[in-house]
């Protein structure tokens, strides 16, 4: 995949890594913005649900050294008479606003397989349009639904991640796996930039800080390109967490 300008705004070209923060939840976004803006500037990107949040806080995003911003697209856009046109309009608006990428979730594992199918459809159309406009496309590969269990979780992640790549994702994000070997296999089959999603299981959250650092170090070791932080920032001091994560991911780069 050509290392274009937009990819280069997300992944630091020197170490090919990134720290992204998911601010799709507006409350979370405000909380982050309310913290020390200095740390925000050091992030590689922020994920938002719409352009408003960017416009309202434009001072954060001006200049060459500011973080990139990424648009989250969910399945609502499919609910129209002409989903492709809808999605195209969305992507064009994203380009106008100088978003660096679009992100969406591929969920598979529902009892009602039509839901799985719709998820794939959304990803496919998004991928097609993003390719036309050379806008990087990040897919979160998240097995979710009644049919997903702790026994088939790793393989389901593997399945979803591979599907994302086949459909045309530029970057894939995967949830943490208990077994590091399983994660290694996922990366083997995906062969594109891969990020770690913020652990969402309550269990992991309880033993937070220590585990996150360890987890991060081990996945970076086997070749993952970075992390998408979300709910972890609601616990404790987000600035401290971000500082730690940045130093682990980018090392002395900053």
């Amino acid at each position, binding site marked *: 995949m*050509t*290392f*274009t*300008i*937009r*990819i*280069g*705004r997300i992944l*630091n*070209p*020197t170490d090919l890594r990134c720290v992204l923060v998911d601010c799709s939840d507006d409350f979370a976004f405000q909380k982050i913005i309310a913290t020390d803006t200095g740390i925000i500037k050091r992030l590689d990107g922020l994920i938002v649900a719409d*352009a408003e949040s*960017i*416009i309202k806080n*434009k001072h954060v*995003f*001006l*200049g*060459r*050294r500011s973080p990139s911003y990424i648009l989250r697209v969910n399945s609502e856009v499919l609910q129209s008479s002409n989903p492709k046109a809808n999605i195209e309009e969305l992507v064009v608006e994203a*380009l*106008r*606003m*100088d978003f660096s990428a679009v992100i969406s979730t591929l969920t598979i594992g529902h009892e009602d397989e039509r839901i799985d199918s719709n998820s794939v459809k959304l990803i496919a159309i998004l991928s097609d349009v993003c390719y036309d*406009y*050379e*806008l990087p496309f990040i897919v979160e590969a998240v097995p979710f639904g009644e049919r997903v269990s702790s026994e088939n979780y790793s393989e389901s992640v593997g399945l979803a991640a591979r599907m994302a790549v086949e459909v045309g994702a530029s970057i894939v994000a995967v949830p943490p796996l208990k077994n590091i070997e399983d994660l290694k296999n996922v990366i083997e089959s995906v062969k594109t930039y891969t990020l770690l999603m913020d652990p969402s299981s309550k269990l992991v959250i309880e033993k937070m800080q220590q585990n996150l650092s360890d987890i991060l170090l081990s996945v970076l070791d086997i070749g993952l390109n970075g992390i998408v932080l979300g709910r972890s920032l609601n616990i404790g001091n987000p600035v401290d967490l971000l500082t730690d994560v940045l130093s682990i991911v980018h090392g002395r780069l900053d």
Partner: protein
Amino acid sequence: MGGSIELSFGKLVRLSKIIDPSDGRSLVVAADHGLMLGPIKGVVDLEATLRKVIAGGPDAILVSLGQARKLSHLFTGKGAPAMLVRVDWTNAFRDKTYTLPARSIQFNKVATVKEAVKVGASGVVTYLFLGFEGENDHIAMVEEFSSECKTWSMPLIIEPLPMGPRVTKANYVDMVRKAVEKAVELGADALKVPYTGDPYSFKEVVEASSGVPVLVLGGYKALSIRDSLEVISEVLDVGAVGVVFGRNVVQDPNPDEAVRLMRRIIHGKETVTDILRERIKPPVRILVDVERCSGCRICELACSFSHEKVFNSSLARLRVKVSEDGKAFIPYVCNLCYSCVNACPNGALRVNSRTGAVEVSPELCQGCGVCVDSCPVKVLKLINGRLLLCDLCDGLPECVKWCSRNALRVEGGW
């Protein structure tokens, strides 16, 4: 940034990548010459040149679409320069200096704004010529670009230029102003304009831009980078926000150093004199390259005028002689031998510790002329009892400054 309330967010955020929001200034390097002029010196191996340029830290680089796609990896990462894409082509600059000189002015679109958006550009650049027959068609083309830029929230940078038979020496400055006004009318978000030569006339041009940011173009490569730096300083003083320099950077033997120096003026807010004083260390020795001297005597004029405010070579503290056979021109300058200091019987001459130049105490000088005789290059003069001698112009010699041929140089200067 600009005075435009109507600037869309997309244009605003993209412009902020070109014009640094912390000081409102910009250093753009143009590297699109290959399209208009061919493989000129400096752009033959574009990637290699751009790597050097980027090492110097420009705010943005202008390339054509084809190169943009091939070299986009150079524009990635925090601190990387923004990318500008040239969307039109013309033959108008292929004057006699280049292959296949133009016989009539032609112009064309060569890229769409959409493609520029796709490749990740922060702005597009197009020419606007005023002064020739096809003017109206050119304006129509720029209008189309302007509308596309609005659709895509892509900043439009227009390069308004007087060009063609209607341009004369008498109306040149007026034509620059008119072209700027037209560009603003057509929706330019920034302007790339030629320098009119002096700050007073240029101020009028800046005023004509009605708040649209003005960047000054560099044109042909100057003989000395000192001239480029001075021009940059002058235009910033009267309201330009920065420059778009091409040949003056890419054709410099050290493009990274050239960019760094320009950054010091633009973002560092230093003056040319600041930089020169840092580079020219005392004792300031004037180096003479006899091969390069053309016998023009400008050095004598500059010396006489700087010291005496009149033009008279006899009052200069250096001289140029023609060799007996008429085949060479030889400047004789003070070479800090201090023979005069040693010869003075009255202790009236001493050495300035800062510059290394000889100084005279008028109260002690008896006008005996022993020093004049002692000078091996005969540059000391006694006129009406007053001793004229080279004071190295306080460390920045005027003769060196005015010599267009580098026949007179100082170490560290240009």
